[in-house]
């Protein structure tokens, strides 16, 4: 089963990459853009039934793919 895990910095954590990209977007003339957040996407293939796969994906995200001190994650079973 394919699972998508998205990881983003928490809202209260400054994202220097996002800020740099936002500046570049403004330089392109898109002044109405007010924020850019940079994140990571992971696609995993995990064998098993839907609830087990979802549970394991959350554990993997929590233990390894995201750092809960600075990041949030969402898990979507595709």
């Amino acid at each position: 089963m394919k699972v998508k895990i998205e990881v983003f910095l928490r809202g209260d954590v400054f994202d220097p990459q996002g800020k740099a990209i936002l500046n570049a977007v403004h330089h392109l003339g898109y002044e109405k853009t007010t924020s850019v957040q940079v994140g990571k996407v992971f696609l995993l293939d995990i064998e098993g039934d839907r609830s087990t796969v979802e549970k394991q994906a959350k554990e993997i995200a929590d233990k390894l793919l995201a750092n809960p001190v600075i990041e949030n994650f969402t898990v979507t079973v595709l």
Partner: protein
Amino acid sequence: MKTVKFGVVVFPGTNCDRDTSWVIQSVCKSEVRYVWHTETDISDLDVVILAGGFSYGDYLRSGAIAHYSPVMKAVKEHADRGKLVLGICNGFQILVESHLLKGAFLHNKTQHFLCQKQYLKVATTDSPFTMKYARDEVIQIPIAHGEGNYYLPQADLDEALTYDLIAFQYCDKQGVVNEETNPNGSTASIAGILNRQKNVLGMMPHPERSSEVEMGSTDGKKIFEGILQWIQSV
């Protein structure tokens, strides 16, 4: 005098292991061995050093994959027994990912890799690592990192201030600590921090690169000397 045995942990991608061993062996005249990341028994060591570099290519987050190397379980047990652990640069990042120290790392506020001489203020002398300095002394130890923006949540910062856990802060030549003298954007200009028991220190600057006159500064040597003196006095 008690012989002090150091171990320098080598992960795939670690690149400051030889410099660190050189300083311990040739400058500080102490015993040292390399510790490969698959080792599980490090009970012969008094001090563990996680050296700088790019363990596992800095994939995912700096230090995140090294956290799950077999040796890290042994390093945690070593620390739990009250023995000393020093993490330098990538070693600091590994200690944070392994929860031996609090906080997390973000990219430098400038988005640039920084490689420069750096002034630091010694914020506490109450630890084995910093006991040879004077409080508020300004020292110079180089930095070289892309993800050195140390983030510490407010509650953990309060704890660090209450228990005097901040070891070094970025500053200028006069010892001024503020936003302008902070090269990477770290919380409270923190360059090095101790755990609550003060037997684990993580620091972004490289003391092994400033322990000999030929290197332009010998200010880093006192960290290794402090470790030696502390163990020999116990």
